[in-house]
């Protein structure tokens, strides 16, 4: 499991991941702009943003905040590293939550109303997507018989064919993680400013840059998990991910932001029903065949 070759590949992955993640974020903004009838920023804009932030003067609110940002960053990188090492999906998920929790703790440590509200909403977001992600991984286990990515990749057919509804559930988690409408309630992303920048209001300069880079790592991780659903053919995988991401962008531009109550009720209601029906279908399918 931890052979030297695999570790080297994983190190290469975590060096390239932020570059790819930033590029995807840039293409995201470009496409969103085009859909809104304007030119949009250059594709490398997220890199310019991060570089600019790195060059700003350091002025944190308190040391707890700084500590939490670092833990968030380390957790995001570690979870992607573990994914690249093809280890256990459930364990990767738990490592990811370390980062998410510490981001919330960092936001709650500041005496800023926007931070506090953003942190509460982030906790509700976590409450929403976490059980669904666990259920997605359990469904993958049902089909492939293992939680290990190495074993999942050996499965002969694309998982999407037997778990289409589960993929929709993963889509919910993807939307929440990417902070796209209707679920961008904790940071009011893309300059909507409902609660200024919510969770991220009191982060500035280099720390905001680190959060952005860690966010890219998380995007890559979630996209990689989506990619597990069609792992058999590389070209098909890329097209699959492209369609997924395009769908995310379209939905982002079409719908308005939801309230946290609606998000919790709707995502749980629809998500758990979809999981239930897909598992039911799996059992029936096995019973028949």
């Amino acid at each position, binding site marked *: 499991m931890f052979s030297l070759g695999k570790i080297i590949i994983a190190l290469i992955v975590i060096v390239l991941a932020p570059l790819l993640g930033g590029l995807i974020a840039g293409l995201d903004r470009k496409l969103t702009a085009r859909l809104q009838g304007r030119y949009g920023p250059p594709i490398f804009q997220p890199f310019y943003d991060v570089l600019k932030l790195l060059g700003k003067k350091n002025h944190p609110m308190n040391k707890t905040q700084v500590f939490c940002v670092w833990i968030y960053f380390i957790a995001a990188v570690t979870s992607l590293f573990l994914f690249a090492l093809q280890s256990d999906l459930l364990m990767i998920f738990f490592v990811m939550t370390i980062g998410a929790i510490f981001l919330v703790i960092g936001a709650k440590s500041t*005496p800023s109303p926007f931070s506090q509200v953003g942190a509460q909403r982030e906790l509700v977001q976590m409450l929403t997507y976490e059980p669904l992600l666990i259920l997605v991984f359990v469904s993958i286990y049902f089909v492939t018989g293992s939680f290990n990515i190495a074993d999942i990749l050996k499965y002969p057919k694309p998982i999407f064919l037997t778990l289409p509804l589960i993929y929709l559930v993963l889509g919910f988690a993807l939307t929440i993680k990417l902070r796209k409408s209707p679920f961008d309630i904790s940071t009011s992303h893309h300059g909507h400013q409902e609660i200024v920048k919510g969770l991220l209001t009191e982060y500035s300069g280099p720390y905001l840059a680190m959060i952005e880079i860690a966010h890219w790592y998380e995007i890559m991780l979630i996209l990689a998990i989506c990619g597990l659903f069609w792992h058999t053919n590389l070209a098909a995988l890329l097209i699959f991910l492209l369609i997924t991401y395009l769908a995310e962008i379209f939905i982002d531009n079409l719908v308005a932001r939801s309230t946290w109550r609606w998000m919790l009720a709707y995502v749980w209601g629809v998500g758990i029903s979809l999981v239930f029906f897909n598992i039911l279908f799996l059992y029936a399918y096995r019973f028949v065949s």
Partner: protein
Amino acid sequence: MDWKTLVLCTMAIPIGGAILSLLDVKAWRRLVVILTSIGISASAILLYLNGSFNLSSSQDLFFTKYNGLISVLDFLLLGYILYLGFKFKHVLIQILTGLQILLLALVEVLHVPTQTSPFFADKLSLMMVLIVSILGSLIAIYGLHYMDVHEEHLHLEKSKQSKFFFFLLLFLGAMNGLVLSNNLLWMYFFWEITTLCSFILIGHDQTEIAIKNSQQALWMNLLGGVAFVLGMLVLTLKHLPLELTSLLTLPISPLLLLALAFLCIAGFTKSAQLPFQSWLTGAMVAPTPVSALLHSSTMVNAGVYLILRLAPLYHKTLFAHYLAFIGAFTLIATSVLALSEKNGKKILAYSTIGNLGMIIACAGIGSPAAIGAGILLILFHAVSKGLLFMLMGYVEQLIGSRMIEDMRGLYDRYPLTSVLMAFGMITMFLPPFGALLSKWMIIESSAHNPIIIILLALGSAFTMVFWGKWIGIILGRTEPNPSKQEHNPMLIKASIYSTAFLALILSVAIIPIYTSIVLPTLKLYYHQTSYTLLFGSFKNEIGMFPVYPLFLVFGLGIIWTLAKLRTSSTKPSSLPYMAGLEAIQEDKFGFVGPIGKFVPFTAGNLYLQDYIGETKITFGINTIAIGTIIVALASVF
């Protein structure tokens, strides 16, 4: 030293210490408690190093001649509780105790004594002895400081501490006896001693609500006692042995299963599972050492210990499935309730009940991986929860409130205490610590059961929310010029710092713990193991968890970050963003509102008490729980 002496020590030393601490001199009491702690910990460690008991030699009949003594003491104890029932004019206590006396008499008369030793220990029992002795000692030491401050706050003229420590140390001896018991009659005796100790300790402050809650705890535990005796009665009527070692070799049959079901119900009441959780939440009125020791680390573990002990017998029966459902349902229900709570001790109580529910779910699922997870969870939960309760009590005495909303900005005044508290909470639900590893094991081993896995997934999501909320409150900074007031006394340092250190070390050393405690137990009862250990990770055919690598990465990361923070500038003077109107007045953050009036910063949290408050949903979840227990009982046939 042979095991018989050590077993005697683990019980005699605390009982001796209890009697000695009746002398009401403060220095003497401190000496007695500290010496008892050292003695009981040493005996526990030596007993553990001695290894599992081998019951083949004839010397093992040493304790059997005390069977008669235990029976007599048992009836005396029940008689005393009956007397208490009449004293408080509490009909339920009278009925339940009377029932127990009658049924116990039946059991004693019909029971044929065997020559099997009444004491036995495998690695699981030895782990329990270690938990009770070492953690119990640390909490008793903590109690020395806590009770002094407690009585000072209450302006008591005459100290009641001698009575307090008598029952606390007596309880430790009884717990040791309970986990080492092989004979169910002996276990029942120790079980009822713990019930009595719990009753007296909950009512220690003798306020109206303490008396009421202690009586509620008493009758609920007595209900468990009735179930226990009923279980023994069924076994006796069917001419089955009352020794666990003999029982565990028998094939399963409906009447045996019925007896086990009764014993499991006794375990439910002791561990405050649904629908019996109200005694535990009510017991939070007791002084905090009681909550830390009895109601999180040790006594409530007795119930799940019994259920886990019996797990090999009801493995793969329909009853086991219902058991798993009850456990998982308890987890999610209590996690939801904890989310709506503002009282810190109640949150900890609900979290305890939830974790115990997870252990019961492990026992119900019954696969070797699940049982191993249950054993590990007992250990890690006991240490982390004990730590959290001790800190909770200490913080309550510092700030004068147990509401978590009042703990905002704790870091400003008591940095080390708040960091330790945050650390305790992190060990409860984040990787790479042991409690999360157990949760990972449970989820992976229950993955084939859709209902259980949905309940577990939802339950664990809720736990993250309320822990995250609480940690955020504690580490919040609300003062522009924090005045650090922290002076932790020596007893607090000894107990709390040691427990925190223990929590860290145990999580790091989880692999040796697994090989030395869990693997032998699994081999003994299941003849198969669940995980292989490779490169410092747990690995089986469906998953893997790298323990040492994760500790290494995060440990190095944290050390590096802390080193950098230490060298960076100490006075960040940034104010929060409040639309340009931010200001500091009267040493508080805030903003200048309309007409120039200063509005200080306040914050709240989501509690959703209208949707998931205790009063709203308790009735519903209790009904579901009672229904499930009835169905589970019926399923034995």
